[in-house]
């Protein structure tokens, strides 16, 4: 009788250990974290990414943003002008919006009238500006990763990007790794 009971407890212990391992693995694989691949450079879409990120950060969710392709325009600092660009990079630099205040709308852009109207409405409705949102994001510890490959493609230099407290440069694998451990993943 005693012998069988001992075995049962041992078995139980083994099962508990196995469960503990599983729980640990699950906890690691799905953290309370939001990963967004921000690819679009439209004002409305960058705005959506930032609003969702701020709400998540306010709810104590870790936020990691991966900016690539057109969205890089939103991270350019209009007051910085890097030197030593080749002809094509210079052309890209001129053609693409210089900073978050110069982005166009994906709909109703109307040659720049749309964004002006939206900005006016945002002010009237007390919605934070994109600039204010980036400031808040920095304070809340939202991480921004800039896609290194896109930087090269667009001919952007790190010297012309905004000053942001949690900024880093990395590749697609970083996004995949971040997204893999995030409970929420979005593509905007």
């Amino acid at each position: 009788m005693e012998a069988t009971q001992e075995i049962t407890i041992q078995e139980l212990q083994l099962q508990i250990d196995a469960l503990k391992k599983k729980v640990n693995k699950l906890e690691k694989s799905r953290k309370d974290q939001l990963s967004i691949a921000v690819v679009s450079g439209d004002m409305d879409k960058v705005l959506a990414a930032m609003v969702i990120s701020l709400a998540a950060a306010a709810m104590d969710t870790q936020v990691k943003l991966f900016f690539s392709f057109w969205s890089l325009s939103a991270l350019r600092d209009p007051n910085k002008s890097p030197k030593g660009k080749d002809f094509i990079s210079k052309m890209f630099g001129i053609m693409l919006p210089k900073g978050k205040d110069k982005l166009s709308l994906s709909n109703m852009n109307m040659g720049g009238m749309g964004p002006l109207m939206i900005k006016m409405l945002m002010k009237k409705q007390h919605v934070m500006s994109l600039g204010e949102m980036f400031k808040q994001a920095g304070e809340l510890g939202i991480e921004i990763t800039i896609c290194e490959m896109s930087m090269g493609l667009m001919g952007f230099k790190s010297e012309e990007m905004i000053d942001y407290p949690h900024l880093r440069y990395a590749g697609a694998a970083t996004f995949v790794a971040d997204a893999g451990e995030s409970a929420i993943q979005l593509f905007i």
Partner: protein
Amino acid sequence: MATDLKSLKSDLVVDARGTACPGPLLAAKKAIGELESGEIMEILSADEGTKNDIPRWCDKVGHEYLGFYDEDSFSRLFLIKE
């Protein structure tokens, strides 16, 4: 419930009437650190969505949401810090 809330004494009032979503949530999150556990926070918001957002936030973070009542042009929301 509404009368209960009206007689409630808040330990901290966060006036977020000047901001739209997600402003009130951010204001609440920033101010919550000033409170001790068990103290009451009152949030003033003119943003309708806040009435849904603040309970969800409380739910997730662990604060106890008490409810809200409407004034003329804004709402008062109440919660107890975890």
